[in-house]
Structure formats: structure tokens, C-alpha cells
């Protein structure tokens, strides 16, 4: 009950943000050079379609009316029509979501689990040589441009060694169903997941190391040690348990950054997700898709942050629901 009220409360806080995102989008379209109707309909649209778009967005009405019309459209899930394929943007985007989720989700889990584990282990010896080396290493990891790392992996594993496929999600003419198909997808995932999780790994090592080290200097850790608890018990029962709070928070906050990496990685590996779609849209100057993608990405991040908040509240009794 408490949790539900908290959820509704937080949802109400997030709604204005959603509104602001849509308004930003709207303002950008109107501030951009060129005719709005061309931006929305495409440069080579036929006059009838152009007129339909003008009607739909109320482009001949006042600025404010246009905003209301635009909001109305978006709240109905109508993000416009892609002028490359003439399909509704929303459908086009949704079709691509599963692939992105698969890629980003897998990489995120690998990076978060591995990073937290390494970070926790290294937090036991702050200032040691191993700590310094790992710290430098993790900073270097998130300084790698992910698309370049992807290219290098392709160059080495796909071009030179010919071990792994360089692009796509499934082999052309490969198995269509069953376990063999799953294995085919896993096979294709290895390189893009490696690229993405490598770059994210650095963040989590660093975060876990700082958070756990911070917790280990708290006085309840001193209490636990004085009571005689063993070091592993202190590290996991007190250290990691309490350090999870900041880790979860950052996990939520940095999702936008993570999606960026996913988009760039998808482009390199021709992974049929949102990122690849955005790339194609840019090449084709398909503005409705780009705007739609921005809105969908923003909403995803927002919902993720909401989920993080709730996870946080569940983890920390001090947060009053």
C-alpha cells in the first residue's frame, strides 16, 4: 500500500518532466531553420500528404494551438509517420526495441555484476598498487570511444581471425527457430556485447570501489569489526549491502549514457535495434524518426529512473515512502 502510494507520488513528479521533454521537442522543430511542414512530411512529399500533415498538426493555427495539437498527438502514442517507409514512427520504433533491449540489457548486467565484484574486491585495499592500477585501468576503459572499440574488435576477431560474425543479429539463411536460432543470436551478440560492456565496466568498477571504500570507513563497520565479525562478513554484509544504494542510483542516472553507447555500437555492428534505425534515419533525413527516437529514449530513461527510485526505497529503510 505504502509502496503504491509512493509509486503514484513519484509518477506524478515524473509527468511534468515528460511534458518538458515533449515541449523541448516541439520548440526544436519550430526553431529549426526551414518549413515545419517539410521537416514533418519530408522534402519530397506530395502536396496532398503535405496538406494532410498541415491539417494534422494544425500548422496554420496559432503557436499555442499547435503545441496543444502536438501534445495531443504524442500522448495518443502518435509520433508521426516515417517518410522513408510511410509507416507510423511508433510502430517502427517498437519493432526495434527488443533488439536494443537484448544488447543493452545483456551488456549492462555483465558490466554491472563484474564491475561491482572487481570494485568491491579492490576497495579492501585502498591506495595499494593493485588499487591504483585498477583505478587507472577503469578510467581508461570508459575513455574508449565505443564505436571505435567495436571497429577494432571487428578488425581483430572478424576480419583477421574470422572467428566471429562482424554484423547483424542473425545469419542470413541461418536456422529459423529453436535452440539453434538462439545460439545464432548469441554468436552474433558476442562482439557488440564485448564492446559495450567493456566501456561500461570501467564505470562500475570505479563506482563500486568508491562506494564500498566509503562505507568501509563508516562507524558501523568499526562497530562490526570490534564485535569480532570476520572481514568477508563485514565486506558483504555491511560494505556491499550499503554500497548498493549509490550503485543503484547511478545505475538509474546513467542510463542515458548507456543508451548512447548502445546506439553507437548498433551502428558499428549493424545490429537491428533503435540505434541502427536512428543512423538510417539520419542518412535519409527522416526527421520524424529522429524526434520519435528522442522521445522514446527519454521516456525509457525516465521510467528507468523511476524504477531505480523504487528499488532504492526498497533497499533503504531510511527513505520514507
Amino acid at each position, binding site marked *: 500500500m505504502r509502496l503504491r502510494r509512493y509509486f503514484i*507520488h513519484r509518477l*506524478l*513528479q515524473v509527468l*511534468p518532466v515528460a511534458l518538458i521533454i515533449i515541449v523541448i521537442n516541439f520548440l526544436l522543430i519550430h526553431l529549426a531553420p526551414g518549413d515545419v511542414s517539410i521537416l514533418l512530411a519530408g522534402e519530397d512529399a506530395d502536396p496532398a500528404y503535405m496538406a494532410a500533415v498541415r491539417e494534422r498538426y494544425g500548422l496554420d493555427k496559432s503557436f499555442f494551438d499547435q503545441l496543444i495539437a502536438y501534445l495531443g498527438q504524442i500522448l495518443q502514442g502518435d509520433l508521426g509517420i516515417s517518410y522513408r517507409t510511410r509507416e507510423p514512427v511508433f510502430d517502427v520504433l517498437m519493432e526495434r526495441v527488443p533488439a536494443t533491449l537484448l544488447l543493452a540489457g545483456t551488456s549492462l548486467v555483465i558490466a554491472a555484476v563484474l564491475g561491482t565484484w572487481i570494485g568491491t574486491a579492490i576497495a579492501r585495499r585502498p591506495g595499494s598498487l593493485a588499487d591504483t592500477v585498477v583505478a587507472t585501468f577503469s578510467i581508461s576503459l570508459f575513455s574508449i570511444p565505443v564505436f571505435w572499440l567495436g571497429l577494432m574488435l571487428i578488425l581483430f576477431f572478424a576480419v583477421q581471425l574470422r572467428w566471429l560474425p562482424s554484423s547483424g543479429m542473425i545469419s542470413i539463411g541461418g536456422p529459423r527457430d529453436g535452440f539453434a536460432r538462439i545460439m545464432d543470436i548469441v554468436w552474433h551478440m558476442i562482439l557488440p556485447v564485448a564492446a559495450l560492456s567493456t566501456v561500461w565496466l570501467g564505470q562500475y568498477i570505479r563506482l563500486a570501489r568508491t562506494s564500498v571504500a566509503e562505507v568501509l570507513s563508516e562507524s558501523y563497520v568499526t562497530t562490526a569489526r570490534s564485535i569480532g565479525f570476520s572481514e568477508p562478513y563485514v565486506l558483504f554484509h555491511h560494505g556491499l549491502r550499503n554500497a548498493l544504494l549509490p550503485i543503484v542510483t547511478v545505475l538509474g542516472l546513467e542510463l542515458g549514457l548507456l543508451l548512447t553507447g548502445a546506439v553507437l555500437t548498433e551502428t558499428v555492428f549493424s545490429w537491428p535495434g533503435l540505434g541502427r534505425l536512428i543512423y538510417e534515419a539520419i542518412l535519409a533525413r527522416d526527421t520524424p524518426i529522429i524526434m520519435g527516437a528522442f522521445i522514446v529514449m527519454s521516456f525509457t530513461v525516465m521510467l528507468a529512473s523511476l524504477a531505480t527510485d523504487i528499488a532504492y526505497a526498497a533497499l533503504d529503510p531510511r527513505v520514507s515512502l
Partner: protein
Amino acid sequence: MTKPLIELSGLRMVYESSHSFMSMFTGRSGPGVTAVDGISLTVRSGETTAIVGESGSGKTTTGRIATLQERPTAGTVRFDGEDVTDLSGAALKRFRRQVQMIFQNPYEALDPRLTIGQSVGEPLRLHHLGSPGERRAKVLKILAEVELRPAEAYADRYPADLSGGQLQRAAIARALILEPKAVIADEPVSMLDVSVRSGVMNLMRALQSRMGMSYLYITHDLAVARYMANRIAVMYLGAIVEEGPTEQLIAASGHPYTRLLISAVPEHHQGARRRRVTLSGDALSETGIPAGCRFHTRCPMAQPVCRSVEPSRVSLGAGHEAACHFATDVARNGLTVAA
């Protein structure tokens, strides 16, 4: 008796609960926190008045209102006979020359990037007093006054080079360089070590007898208040529960809370074991001020009347007052736990 310098009357300070995001849309905000709940207090010229209270009693807020760092929700502040509650602009700046402040934490008292001399001289610069040369001379003189000698050497050092006691002396110098009529000191020695503390207190007393300003001395420590002040006001949950001349207030307190505070001060003289009074209830209420007498939830001698009727101030003679239904009784017989 000398003339009143600072007169606080009917002060109330209610803090709105923090601006939440929702309140931007709903226009609602939660109930406020009452930090100061109807305080009247007079600081006389050339005298020291102490406010004694636990943390959360509102003593610091009272001090901040007296210096107009915060404006009260209700009530007035008079300085030298003039209502200054709503001063602003140039008049406020003139007021600030007259009333200065000494704070608790000496380690944050001075801007770490400025030399001691620059910090101490800052008020002069702000009020455009004197040429740079005259200011420097004044800074050196006041540094010598607070016993930071040789003043030339101290003036050119940075706060990081000074110890806590020395920093607090420098902070006192900065407060006194404008020769104010009143100084509000908020726990100026509580963060200092015992061996340094007495030096700062003695310095403050010596400077007062030399320069003649008034102090409003805010502290949680009754013994310190006794050492420093002519008059003491005891605060509890935002209100003054007892006020009077120092020795009388300590010797014949009329409020059970004052009695408890006195009995809680450990005695460090040989063999003197005092009788401890057990106190009912827990720490200060964080949610609100109880109805009736604000102390009844913890008072060992609370009666039914205390739960419903807020006591008014009872005069115990010679400017000594206590806000307790049984003040005369308490003043005469001490704490008697009712059967």
C-alpha cells in the same frame, strides 16, 4: 540599571517545510516548523545576557534574528530605541556596523584564501572606512588587542597556519574592528579545548570592560553562562521558560527545567556527589510543541493543569521570571516530585 540596547519582543519564527516539487503545482506546503515561539528579551547596554538551551531550543535562531540575518515571522527587534525589524539598504548596512556576530566554528571562521589581516580588515573595507594605510594600522591594533602578537606576523598568515584558539581570536578581532555596540556570540568556545576555552572567555570579558559593548551570549552550558553573563534566559522548545539575574536564577530557579539543567551539570569538586533527578520522557520533540506547558512531557512534577493550560510568566522578584504554574513553589522548595 543601564538602558536597553536590543529589545526583542514577541518574536516568532516559523520555517516553511522545504519547497517540494509538488508544492509548485498544488500550491500547498506542509505545516511549518516553529523554531521561535513568542520570545521577548532585552539586552542592556554594556551588559552580557546569556541564552541557555539545548540544541533545537531556538537559541541560535534568536541570535540570528537579533542580528537581522533572518527576519522574524512576527514580532519586532528594536535597537537603541529604534525599530529595526524591517531595515534594508543603507540603513541596514548602518545597523550592521553596530551589531556584530561571533560564531561557533573557528575553523570555518575565516576565508581560507585570505590572510588574517585581510579577513579582519574586511568590515572596514565594506564600510569604506579609512585609507588602506589606516585600515592596516587598525587591523594591527585590534590583533594586538586580542593577543595575537606580534600582530604584523599574524596579519600576513593564512587561516590554515593557525590553531582553533587563535582563529577564534582573529574572528573576535574581525567582529570588534568596527567598534560595535553589541556582539552576538553563538557558542564561541564550545568547539575549543578546555585549556584554550578559558583564555577566549577571559579575553571577551576583558574586551567588554575596555570597550563597553553588550554581549548576547548563546550557549548550552550553564556554567559558561554563569561565568560570562549578568542575566540568563533559559530557552526550551522555542520559548524562554525562565529569565533572571545570573546568581538568583541559579540559586533559586523557578522552573523545573532550569533545575534539571543545573542538576545535570556534573560536579568536578572532590567528593561532591549531587543528587540526580531522573527525567521522564525523551529528547526534544521534533514534531511540534506540546499543548499546555511545553515542558510537561518531560517534567517530573507535571500536574493535570500543565497538560492543558500554558503557564504565563510568574515574577519571582527583581527581574526574575519563570513560566511555570508552580514557579514560586519551585523557587522556594526546589523540585518536589508530586505524590
